[in-house]
């Protein structure tokens, strides 16, 4: 009954805190969790001293009282059984696993990252064997169902702490680069599953096989007159604390270990259930102390075995990150004390589940709980594998030479649209209802794709040139017949262009690009003059602006269009021996000074003719801009891609995607971004263009994940060897086609330059 609210609070509160503080959630839900975004406070002697004194003041009375008692009563617990054979087997197995894990033999380097789990399995077997020797029974032999259930619960339990760690980032894993989400999941889940059996097994051994902390069985009692009020107060404080860990990670990180314990026990107390603190009313502190000690003992082994593992965790704890014992800072070991109690709380819940009480067994609540746990475990099993249903070999989409099969199928669909006038008219009409620009941009990306395809398949050059000419002639005709507003959105008519030439760089740039690409593949005399005219007029417009940028719409400059214009100018330099190098240098210098978002280092997406920023860095703009800048300044372009990849690109469970806006900028959801999926901030527009970015910059890992998402959320439809994506439209498919064949054209330009 209490599991639902408990789960909601523990998982939801940190997210709620982050949402209320106005941060984006995507990075907190990243999987595998590899990005480091919390910058921690440096070491502080003051904080270290206060925390050390606090820990000593809490621990010392119990230890001192127990040692005094032990001085008076030093009777040892006799053994009942011999140490069993399976205990010896576990011991030998553990020694071998330990030796292999710490050795650096070449022949066992492949299995070394996987030896942490065998080491812990042997630890668990050995502590169970020691308990069996001392008490005549142990979890492994006498509560086997409970024992195995602990492994399952443990995997979930520690994944929860990994989730909380996303908000405070007190540790991260080294040596897990280039690991797929499913590999990461299993490589993490297996060792996570040993946590509870190890801690609770150690507790069993200490409780039954030693007289440790016997002295505190009659220590001071804690009697609370209104336990439910106290529990309510603790619950409220713990909830506030847990909600705040993502907002103030440096201040509240200790709550990662304390708040879950308080929330669970408070809910138990309010519900009238027995809590782990119940024996304290009689002054019996032994279980509490032994649990804390058990976790500390396990903590020692965790840190020791981790310290020389080939894949290991590293701590980044604020204020106290010094005096390390293995990888853990000295005061970090204090976290193990409440952790032991948390293990026991979960262990008690599991015990309740696995008990054979017929009343509970027959209840509907138990059935619902079974269903809930099964569904949660199944989700943990399935979700890391989901991407495999949609993952295809990248070479199916993009090949180094020639045209990959899927790219060919998308191209066939694009040709089909130009062959079948009726189908094309329908497709264009559908797009123009939402955005007239898409009709235009679909043409540009199609021509760019065809130019690359002509270089990839010289045998098909004539065919591709024919289609390019049809697209270009049709575009020029429409512009001539309908004027410059035909391919612009309606609001273009609402204002006056500031530039004296009163032209849209959006149209001039992309038309110049189409003409230039066509001429690069094969010179066409009739395109020379219109190309030169567009290049000249664009430069004039850009020179008029104080920040050297042309308007796409009246007093509205877009980075996307300006970088396309620059790329077209570079093509002009190659084709017509013009020289824009000095202009490029001035443009870059001005852009670095005026058009870079200071919070991210990315180029902003839109601004006035005078350079006043309208919108910050935008996903649906920056990927193409970085690609076009490859023709202007490859290093600057690569830097822009790298930053965009870090701040906008993301992967969850093997699916790649991109956001429209970085954390530092709150921008609108519009026709460019597409409908943004909340929480992860997935933008279809930005994700589609990110495929172009990843392809152009050779980011194969990200490309593979983006293509997996495309197969999943793009809803591909194959008909007669043609491929289109239902979630997309002609312009989206044209961008995708260009992304899958991009490369040879830019290479050709650099070769000729």
């Amino acid at each position, binding site marked *: 009954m209490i599991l639902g609210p408990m789960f909601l609070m523990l998982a939801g509160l940190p997210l709620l805190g982050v949402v209320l503080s106005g941060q984006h959630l995507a990075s907190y839900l990243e999987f595998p969790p590899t990005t480091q975004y919390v910058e921690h406070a440096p070491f502080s002697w003051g904080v270290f001293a206060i925390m050390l004194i606090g820990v000593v003041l809490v621990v010392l009375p119990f230890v001192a009282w127990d040692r005094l008692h032990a001085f008076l009563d030093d009777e040892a617990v006799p053994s009942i059984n011999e140490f069993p054979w399976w205990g010896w087997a576990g011991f030998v197995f553990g020694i071998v696993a330990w030796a292999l894990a710490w050795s650096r033999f070449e022949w066992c380097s492949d299995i070394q990252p996987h030896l942490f789990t065998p080491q812990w399995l042997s630890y668990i077997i050995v502590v169970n064997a020691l308990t069996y020797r001392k008490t005549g029974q142990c979890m492994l032999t006498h509560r086997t169902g409970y024992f195995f259930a602990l492994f399952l619960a443990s995997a979930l339990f520690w994944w929860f702490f990994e989730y909380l760690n996303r908000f405070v980032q007190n540790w991260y894993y080294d040596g897990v680069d280039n690991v797929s989400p499913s590999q990461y999941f299993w490589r993490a889940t297996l060792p996570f599953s040993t946590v509870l059996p190890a801690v609770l097994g150690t507790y069993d051994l200490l409780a039954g096989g030693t007289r440790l902390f016997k002295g505190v069985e009659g220590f001071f009692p804690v009697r609370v007159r209104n336990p439910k009020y106290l529990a309510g107060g603790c619950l409220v404080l713990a909830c506030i604390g847990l909600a705040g860990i993502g907002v103030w990670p440096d201040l509240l990180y200790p709550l990662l270990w304390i708040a879950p314990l308080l929330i669970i026990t408070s809910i138990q107390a309010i519900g009238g259930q027995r809590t782990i603190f119940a024996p304290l009313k009689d002054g019996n502190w032994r279980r509490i102390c032994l649990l804390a000690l058990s976790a500390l003992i396990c903590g020692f082994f965790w840190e020791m075995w981790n310290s020389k593992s080939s894949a290991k965790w590293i701590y980044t704890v604020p204020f106290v990150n010094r005096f390390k014992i293995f990888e853990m800072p000295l005061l970090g070991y204090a976290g193990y004390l409440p952790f032991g109690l948390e293990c026991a709380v979960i262990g008690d819940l599991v015990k309740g589940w696995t008990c054979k009480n017929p009343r509970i067994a027959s209840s509907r609540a138990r*059935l619902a709980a079974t269903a809930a746990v*099964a*569904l949660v475990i*199944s989700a943990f099993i*399935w979700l890391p594998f*989901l991407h495999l249903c949609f993952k295809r070999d990248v070479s199916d989409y993009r090949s180094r030479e020639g045209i990959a099969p899927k790219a060919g199928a998308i191209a066939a669909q694009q040709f089909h649209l130009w062959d079948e006038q009726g189908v094309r008219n*329908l497709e264009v009409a559908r797009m123009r*209802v939402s955005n007239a620009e898409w009709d235009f941009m679909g043409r540009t990306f199609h021509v760019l794709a065809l130019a690359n395809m002509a270089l990839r398949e010289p045998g098909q050059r004539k065919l591709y040139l024919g289609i390019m000419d049809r697209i270009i002639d049709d575009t020029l005709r429409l512009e001539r017949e309908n004027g410059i507003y035909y391919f612009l959105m309606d609001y273009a008519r609402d204002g006056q262009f500031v530039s004296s030439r009163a032209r849209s760089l959006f149209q001039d740039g992309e038309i110049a690009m189409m003409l230039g690409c066509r001429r690069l593949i094969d010179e066409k005399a009739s395109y020379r003059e219109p190309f030169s005219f567009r290049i000249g007029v664009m430069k004039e417009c850009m020179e008029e602006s104080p920040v050297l940028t042309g308007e796409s719409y009246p007093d509205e400059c877009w980075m996307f269009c300006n970088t396309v214009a620059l790329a077209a100018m570079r093509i002009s330099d190659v084709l017509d021996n013009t020289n824009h190098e000095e202009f490029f240098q001035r443009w870059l210098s001005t852009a670095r000074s005026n058009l870079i978002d200071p919070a991210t280092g990315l180029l902003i997406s839109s601004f006035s003719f005078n350079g006043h920023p309208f919108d910050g860095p935008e996903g649906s703009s920056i990927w193409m801009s970085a690609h076009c800048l490859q023709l202007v300044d490859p290093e600057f372009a690569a830097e822009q891609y790298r930053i965009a990849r870090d701040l906008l690109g993301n992967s969850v469970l093997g699916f790649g995607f991109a956001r429209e806006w970085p954390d530092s900028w709150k921008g609108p959801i519009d026709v460019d971004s597409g409908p943004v999926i909340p929480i992860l901030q997935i933008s279809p527009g930005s994700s589609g263009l990110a495929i172009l970015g990843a392809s152009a910059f050779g980011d194969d890992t990200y490309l593979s994940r983006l293509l997996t998402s495309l197969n999943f959320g793009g*809803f591909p439809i194959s008909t007669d060897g043609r491929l289109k994506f239902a979630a997309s439209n002609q312009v989206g498919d044209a961008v995708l086609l260009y992304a899958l064949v991009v490369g040879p054209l830019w290479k050709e330009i650099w070769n000729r330059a």
Partner: protein
Amino acid sequence: MESRLIKLFVVRAVAIVLIYALCDAIGWRDYASVISGTSPDPAGMTLTATLKAVIYILLFLATFIVVPILLISSALIFVWTMIRNRFAVLAGSTSTKSIRMAVTNENANHLRVSTR
């Protein structure tokens, strides 16, 4: 009880797959284009087109995310029930043995007392 749960999960999984397959067969996949702001209907973005898109996308997500989870859950519950029943049988036989031993001891004591 658990068998009812398994049946519940499997029946729902099969129902989701069948409805999804039906929607796919009648061409509702095309309506996913509303994601890109375009509608397959020449009339543009109508309420009907949007509803079809939402239903199709939810069914698609349910088929690929929820259905496998339901089926894996069914398998887990089945295995868990088998293990629990097995342990229940073992525990039952242990208890029977203990009772038998206790009775034997009691008889022996009774015999000892009688002999005295």
